[in-house]
């Protein structure tokens, strides 16, 4: 049943300082960005709280900028803003590819990168990209000021992260990515479908790989990465990958299917990012 929304409290902050104060004084406060996850929960009758904090008045948190080679994408940057950004297209084309696969236009126009990270679904489409880009999550609170956490150590388990209850994600930072970037999502259909499996990869002397929807959180694949870096064949790397992940059966897919798709994605990554198309693997 849908939630009765009239009793809910919503704070609209005048500044980031004001927002962080509310986060500190009302620990159960639920921040709102594009609401494409929160309102699905509300409409389904499973409200995440009674006190909400609207982040959208904080326009500064939507900024996309580059400084000393580090690309900073504000937590409130929408998928549409990411797709349109010249900076992101140049430096992080795999994030643009992932953003294009999120929902339809209505979701891309409202959904934010910060929301995807904070929502912490193992099926979040941008998460494998953030993992291989070795992004940094920039957090802020009234108590501790700003702190930076490597994205690969941000999640601690299913829908759990190191973010403190009073912290907001303010931005994601990306050091320059060397090598060819790659992203592929496999779902029941292109738009609006939750991913069954998705993979992001970077092809360089230090190949990097991450898979989504195969574990409780997004995962990097250190063993398959090391094998490829050491010159292993792609067949060998796929075999190692199968021992490295243990996907589960759920309403969307079986473990066996996910394992097969993960192997196929690894092959596609290796093929698509090869320097010469003639070189066979």
């Amino acid at each position: 049943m849908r939630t009765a929304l009239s009793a809910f409290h919503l704070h609209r902050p005048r500044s980031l300082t004001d927002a962080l104060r509310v986060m500190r004084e009302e620990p159960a406060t639920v921040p709102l960005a594009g609401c494409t996850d929160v309102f699905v929960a509300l409409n389904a009758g499973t409200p995440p709280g009674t006190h909400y904090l609207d982040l959208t008045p904080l326009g500064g948190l939507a900024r996309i900028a580059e400084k000393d080679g580090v690309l900073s994408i504000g937590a409130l940057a929408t998928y549409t803003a990411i797709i349109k950004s010249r900076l992101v297209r140049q430096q992080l084309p795999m994030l643009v590819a992932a953003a294009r696969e999120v929902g339809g236009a209505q979701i891309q126009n409202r959904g934010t990168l910060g929301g995807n990270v904070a929502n912490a679904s193992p099926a979040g489409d941008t998460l494998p990209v953030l993992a291989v880009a070795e992004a940094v999550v920039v957090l802020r609170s009234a108590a501790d000021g700003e702190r930076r956490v490597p994205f690969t150590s941000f999640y601690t388990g299913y829908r759990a992260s190191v973010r403190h209850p009073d912290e907001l994600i303010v931005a994601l930072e990306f050091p320059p990515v060397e090598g060819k970037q790659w992203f592929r999502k496999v779902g029941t259909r292109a738009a609006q479908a939750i991913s069954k499996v998705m993979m992001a990869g970077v092809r360089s002397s230090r190949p990097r790989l991450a898979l989504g929807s195969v574990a409780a959180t997004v995962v990097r694949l250190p063993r398959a990465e090391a094998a490829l870096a050491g010159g292993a064949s792609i067949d060998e790397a796929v075999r190692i990958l199968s021992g490295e992940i243990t996907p589960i059966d759920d309403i969307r897919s079986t473990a066996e299917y996910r394992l097969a798709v993960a192997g196929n994605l690894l092959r596609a990554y290796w093929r698509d990012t090869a320097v010469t198309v003639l070189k066979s693997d």
Partner: protein
Amino acid sequence: MRLTVNGTPVEVDAPPMKRLLDVLREDCSLTGTKEGCGEGECGACTVLVDGVAVASCLVPFAQAAGASITTIEGLGGNHPLQVAFMREVGAQCGICTPGMIMAALPLGPKPSLAKVKDALAGNLCRCTGYEAIYRAIRSAWGEQAPT
């Protein structure tokens, strides 16, 4: 709270977390915007907020404060897209139609088929099979654009 609906400034007194969809239908008596799924999947509730297509079932009223909202009523009835949907039979039961038209509106005249499919990827139709909808949008401003 003040906002502009179809070009007219209005003052609406509604709870801040109320869905924009319900504010439009209940407080503004604009029932052209439909609810299909209530979870962002079907696009029936699509309206434009400052020219951008959004699913109004996922927008808290407070986030529309000060914004300019365009609903299907704002098109007046004889808009080229509305005429084309009638001519090409782009509507059967009609529940998806206002959302389809609002999602197509930001495309402007004579969009390519690829652009139309992209813009409508978040809109479901259980009746038409989409072909008539694509045809309507692509021919709304005269001859269809090449694919």
